[in-house]
């Protein structure tokens, strides 16, 4: 079993559900991914899709946050943020891309299914997919690039929306999505923006050629165009800035938890190396050498602090009565800061682990390099850090022209 218990998290926030789910997912990661990847490498068809089907459909994680009355498991309270973080850590330990798919789904589900504000019509529209026993609910968020304009526009038409975008770039899963969560500027609406859930098979959705990318092999990445795609009114899953920000805050929480899970694996690979690898001749292993031990300590520090930060973010989102709604401007900036911090930590930790392992660090056989590629690719879904810092300065320094 893994070493995640070594890393502190606020245990008083983790209930029976979080603990038992984490154990189940730890076993899933080991049997469905880790035990097979030396042979199957990063094959989508042979390794990743079967593992996703097991996770989403058989174990049933795609129904976890879905209301019971719509065929889900009914964990659709704000406290599910902690459940989500706990689950995503363990899933990402096995595969970061699959965990990110789950994070995108959770972000969509919280938009429509949170207890007290359940959007029943949306749930009804989406239940055939999310409550399905055989269809994967893969959600591709289409968010503004460079933290600027939405990539898509939607015009109010009778009974719904007409969505337009040319060559939009989803954050992930453009090629294998069953649903796009498209942030649009809205015309003919009281709301300036909203997120529309666009079924991938809807008329007018055109997926481009798959793109070769650095990491996240579970993400079949491609640009997508929407040409007068009709979307029912009920599938406006988030309307207005606050609901859109809540989607983003959950997505940022998901990215943080995915990074923590990736770091768990990097740590485990490094620990094994440090136990056995000789430096300066015989009988002197890496973990006992002060120079290498100090680098290994940095890796452990990054994992520990990232986990604590991520759980604190989940806690804030889980207590709107204390911290305000997930989609408040303050919470979004906090989520953005933590996600960037944790993603940078994951980048550093995997870099340093590779440093220790020299050639084995970049050999695919040792599996470390895939986490390094994955966390970097995942970090890019947050957008440029330099532009994110403008949001931070706006909040903390009340900058008005940035």
């Amino acid at each position, binding site marked *: 079993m893994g070493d995640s218990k070594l890393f502190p998290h606020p245990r008083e926030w983790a209930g029976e559900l979080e603990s038992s789910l984490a154990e189940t997912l730890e076993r899933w990661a080991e049997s469905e991914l880790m035990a097979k990847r030396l042979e199957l*490498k990063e094959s989508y068809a042979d390794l990743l899709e079967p593992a996703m089907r097991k996770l989403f459909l058989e174990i049933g994680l795609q129904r976890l946050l879905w209301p019971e009355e719509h065929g889900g498991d009914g964990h659709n309270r704000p406290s599910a943020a902690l459940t989500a973080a706990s689950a995503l850590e363990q899933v990402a330990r096995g595969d970061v891309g699959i965990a990110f798919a789950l994070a995108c789904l959770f972000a969509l589900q919280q938009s429509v299914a949170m207890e007290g504000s359940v959007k029943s019509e949306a749930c009804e529209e989406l239940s055939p997919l999310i409550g399905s026993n055989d269809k994967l609910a893969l959600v591709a968020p289409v968010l503004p*690039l*460079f*933290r*600027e304009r939405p990539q898509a526009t939607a015009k109010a038409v009778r009974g719904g929306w007409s969505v337009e975008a040319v060559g939009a*770039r989803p*954050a992930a899963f453009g090629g294998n999505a069953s649903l796009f969560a498209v942030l649009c500027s809205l015309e003919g609406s009281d709301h300036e923006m909203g997120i529309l859930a666009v079924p991938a098979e809807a008329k007018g959705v055109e997926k481009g050629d798959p*793109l*070769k*990318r*650095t*990491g*996240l092999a579970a993400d079949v990445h491609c640009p997508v165009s929407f040409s007068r795609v009709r979307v029912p009114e009920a599938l406006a899953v988030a309307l207005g800035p606050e609901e859109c920000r809540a989607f983003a805050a959950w997505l940022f929480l998901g990215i943080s938890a995915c990074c923590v899970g990736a770091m768990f694996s990097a740590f485990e690979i490094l620990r094994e190396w440090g136990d056995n*690898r*000789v*430096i*300066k*001749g*015989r009988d002197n292993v890496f973990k006992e050498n002060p*120079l*290498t031990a100090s*680098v290994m300590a940095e890796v452990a520090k990054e994992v520990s602090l990232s986990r604590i930060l991520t759980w604190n973010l989940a806690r804030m989102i889980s207590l709107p009565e204390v911290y305000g709604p997930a989609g408040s401007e303050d919470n979004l900036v906090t989520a953005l800061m933590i996600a960037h911090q944790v993603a940078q930590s994951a*980048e550093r930790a995997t*870099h340093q682990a*590779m*440093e*220790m*392992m*020299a*050639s*084995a*660090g*970049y*050999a*695919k*056989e040792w599996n470390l*390099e895939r986490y*390094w*590629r994955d966390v*970097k*690719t995942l*970090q*890019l*879904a947050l*957008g*440029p*850090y*330099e*532009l994110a*810092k*403008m949001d931070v300065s706006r909040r903390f320094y009340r900058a008005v022209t940035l």
Partner: protein
Amino acid sequence: MRTIDDFTRPLEYLSPLDDPLGKIVREWAEEHVIPYRRSFDEDWKDHELIEPAFKVLMGELGLQRVLFPEDLGGWGLGHSNYAGTASYRLMEEVARADSGMAVAFGVVFWPLVMICMEPHVNRTLCEEFAPIFCNTTEPRFAANAMTEPQGGADIENFEIVKGSTIRTTAVLDGDEWVINGHKLWPTNSGGVCNLFGVVCTTNPGSEDPNDFAFIFVPADTPGVTQGPPYEKAGMAADKNGDIWFENVRVPAHYRAHGPGLDLLYFKEVITFGNMGSIAFVGGAMMNVYERLYQFVSEETYRGRPLKEHDAVAGVLADIARDIDIIRIVGYQYARMIDRPDLYGPRWDDEMVAKGRAYKYWACDRAIEDLGKAMNLMSTYGADRDWDVEKHWRDLKIVQLWMGGKQLCQAEVARWFFECETL
């Protein structure tokens, strides 16, 4: 418009071959590599796309011959006083297109440094091996077989382990060496090598420098087995694999220089490895500049090109600063290699330590800058189509090879602070 040629070089001490070599290689890169390199990752095993480009560069243009004396069909670089600066330019230009190709090409010369460079030319071995490289228009590869399974590149940590951890043995039997052992990871192994330089011990466990042996082994010698290439995070053009030597017999004169001198001159190999690594970093980063320049000029934020945003420009400035300084430092080190009369022998501990320092500094800067460049590009930063992520993966490998950062740190601290137990 600014170009990569605007990055600074010390113009007063460039090699006389600099302009023609640079022009030839840049044209080769534009025609034979850059249009195809986005498919190189999938070609890691078969080299169906990569091999033709090697054939042009090394065989047809003849650059695999440069180190050998002119009368043996070479270009005489080993006898010149500009082997460092000329080869730096070569490596920089190849790495701009593909640093995996640059290392595979550069490592052809790595074992040959032992026998082709003044003042320790081994004329007999030059005559013996020149035909492999000079009498053909096909690409021919050489490799340094150093790294071993247990301690990895720790065998390079000479000052501490003094060769005592080398397990590949060489036993003199009459007028032949009999070699047994197992090596990992040499560039140009994985089935492509024609000539190995093998690091051996003549007395296992010994710390006596006289027992360190560097012996040439043609790859087709009975008893040599090359395993298939490893799959790596990047650098598909550089094949690495296992090599087994089982009762391999080569003539006694295939030992490069003999007791004591083999280890002494082998340190020069490390010096050239450090210089080459800096050139790979500098060349690749110049291409990152080209690609990033295009990206931040085309993509907009609030109606203006991304590069016109003050905070973004700050990051772009850092990246340009580092590329400029890496290039200056790289050429400076190459110059130090060219002028042993001023800077000391290339195999001296001082040259090795300073090379390690420059190498790991350049790698650290490049990896950090590449991470920032990818970040500025948002989701496009991970796209193969923009090439930046390729350089990120490739240069990470440069950072980690030859013992990685910690071995560099140990050698630098040992020399500058005269540490005695590191």
